[in-house]
């Protein structure tokens, strides 16, 4: 038998020791964001892991990602153009520019919500800023977003349409706002899902309703007209709408006509004019809004989303205490 004091007999090396960390302290939301930044390499690895795991067991791999919007496109074009007779020129492009946003939003939320429970092995065994897991789901959704954008680019090529240069500046801004919003919700939902496992299913239902309320399949103009000029702002209570509208504005780049009873400061600067109301007219997809209209709405959604993000991080911090045990 070797003796218990064996190692004491030999000289021990002096090791330099690192700075003290109070591991038991709950970091505040800002500190949490800094932690995520410090662990960005891990974030990258987790995104790669997410994609690898997702496609490891499927033969078609990334093709699935492209198949989804294509299938949607075929079905919705058929139903809305042919059956319901919604007249939107270049419906394919219109639909794809909104669907791009929506697919990102719904995959990010869906994958993000299950990200903590799905990585129980990691959460139970090691410490790292756990909000990286929902954020990795967002990262993976961004890759899908890029792939699905290819479908849209193909459609633009087929129909010989060019995006709007005038509004292009709003597009990256809208995308950033979209990421903040999706991150905030994914972080909160991922932590809640540890304690209430049906969050994932409830989310599915919520997303279904949300999709139909987000002016992806039908033109926003119909919503605005239904609400009327005084109440149009209500549509923006759905924070996804300004983002989708921006994408549609830039990528779909509609041509305007000044007819229809609602013109909201159209090209001629005209206000509401009832005599212009011509029912049963073809409905062009767009309403003219200046760039500032888009930017101001995006700013508001962005600020709100950032507020939700801080709140989500705070909530996450509290729910994190027993996460490893509850999972």
């Amino acid at each position, binding site marked *: *038998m*070797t003796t*218990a004091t*064996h*190692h*004491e007999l*030999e*000289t*021990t*090396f*002096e*090791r330099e*020791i*690192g*700075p*003290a*960390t*109070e*591991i*038991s*302290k*709950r970091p505040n939301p800002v500190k949490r964001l800094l932690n995520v930044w410090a*662990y960005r*390499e*891990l974030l990258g*690895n*987790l995104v790669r*892991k997410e994609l*690898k*795991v997702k496609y*490891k*067991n499927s033969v078609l791999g990334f093709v699935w990602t492209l198949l989804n919007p294509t299938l949607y496109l075929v079905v919705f074009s058929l139903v809305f153009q042919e059956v319901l007779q919604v007249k939107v020129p270049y419906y394919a492009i219109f639909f794809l520019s909104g669907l791009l946003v929506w697919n990102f939003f719904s995959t990010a939320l869906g994958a993000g919500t299950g990200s903590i429970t799905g*990585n129980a*092995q*990691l*959460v*139970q*065994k*090691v*410490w*790292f800023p756990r909000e990286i897991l929902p954020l990795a789901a967002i990262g993976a959704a961004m890759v899908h977003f890029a792939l699905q954008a290819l479908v849209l680019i193909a459609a633009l090529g087929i129909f010989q349409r060019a995006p709007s240069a005038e509004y292009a500046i709003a597009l990256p801004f809208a995308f950033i706002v979209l990421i903040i919003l999706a991150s905030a919700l994914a972080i909160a939902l991922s932590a809640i899902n540890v304690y*209430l*496992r*049906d*969050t994932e299913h*409830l989310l599915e239902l919520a997303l279904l309703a949300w999709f139909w309320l987000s002016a992806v399949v039908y033109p926003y103009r119909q919503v605005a007209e239904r609400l009327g000029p005084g109440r149009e702002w209500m549509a923006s209570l759905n924070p996804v709408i300004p983002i989708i509208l921006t994408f549609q504005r830039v990528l779909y780049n509609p041509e305007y006509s000044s007819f229809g009873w609602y013109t909201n400061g159209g090209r001629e600067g005209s206000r509401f004019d009832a005599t212009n109301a011509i029912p049963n007219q073809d409905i062009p997809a767009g309403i003219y809004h200046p760039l500032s209209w888009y930017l101001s709405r995006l700013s508001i959604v962005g600020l709100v989303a950032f507020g939700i993000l801080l709140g989500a991080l705070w909530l996450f911090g509290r729910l*994190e*205490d*027993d*996460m*490893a*045990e509850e999972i």
Partner: protein
Amino acid sequence: MAEVITIDRVSKTFKMTKDKPKSAKERVIRAGRIKWEEFRALDDVSFSVEQGETLAMLGHNGSGKSTLLKCVAGTLRPTKGSITHRGRLAALLELGAGFHPDLTGRENVFLNGSILGFSKSQVEGIFDDIVDFAELDEFIDLQVKHYSSGMYARLGFAVAINVDPDILLVDEVLSVGDEAFQRKCIDRIRRMQREGRTILVVSHATDTVRQIADRAVVLDHGKMIADAAPGEAIRTFREALAARGVEVPLHAEETDHSPPTIADPVTGEMPIIIGPGALVDDPGATVAIRHVIPEYPDEDVHHLLPGQPLKLRIGYTATGMITDVAFAIEIFDEDGTRLMGTTTDVLEQYIHAVKGEGEVTFVFDSMPLLDGTFPLTVAIHSHDGGTIYDEREFEDSFAVMNPGRTRGIVNFPVKVEHLFHF
């Protein structure tokens, strides 16, 4: 020496209920009817670990030792109190590191490396060492879900020790893997001790604790009941275990442990008891094992031949008169299988009292063993086992040498008969 881990008044409370609502639906349906109970997994625990020290945490199942380790690792957060540590920390909680079952061993090594703050090139630098140590060359590109639990644990251990941790947390993993790998782990832990790394282990394998720890704390129902040298802590741990056994109303011990007062029917000897008043316990007296000597028949060779007699002499020193005392021995084989375990009570050879110095000898007329070194565990405890005065685990052994060619451990008495008709 600097404090590397400081645990300051840490408590952890879990909210428990018999039938936990796991969904929002249930919460709504059963709102107000759920009875939450608080469960204190840790109750005001404070201690610190110095740099280069190896501390073991002992405790029964549910004592809170694993909860505390998780709090130190940061996967759980204490309800009260603070835990501070310095330097890089690698943790092996329960079964190994955190691996993703769908990823290969290689991918998991890189993922784990980045969790521990390693860049890709840094992981590449230690990758071969990890694979070598884990002995997984052929399997490193296999998804870990196809790994056996041993392979899984090996890879986890290999990662944790190769990431140059200042602090290593280990939870029971030393009991995983085959014997050779366990020895390799112990060797590696010794090397890490020499390198001045701080190690915190959770175990209920007392021999491991004795073997590697400098100090041990004992947790019982979330409270720290000892912080002492390993030997002393192990004794406290055993006493706590025994106390728990007594608490549980199993069938009351009906065996009479009181010394016999009638003459032995075989030898006709009268027990050496003068009178009931003659043996009075000294309060607080304790007894320690002084030595354990295997006495071989041939004094010149330090082993016996199969079938030869053996005497195991247990010397003791008692600080006062103790009447509630029994001696126990256990004989193991080299794989740790118990071959025999008995006590003076079981043998009905009662030790009536100990005081001062003395020796108790177990006399084996014949040892039907073939070959090997047989480790011993010797203990002195009270009749009901509730108090363990002293114990020596696997520190002593005796050896048997087999000059013949029969293989195995036990020398069963055997003859050969042959009936034939040519």
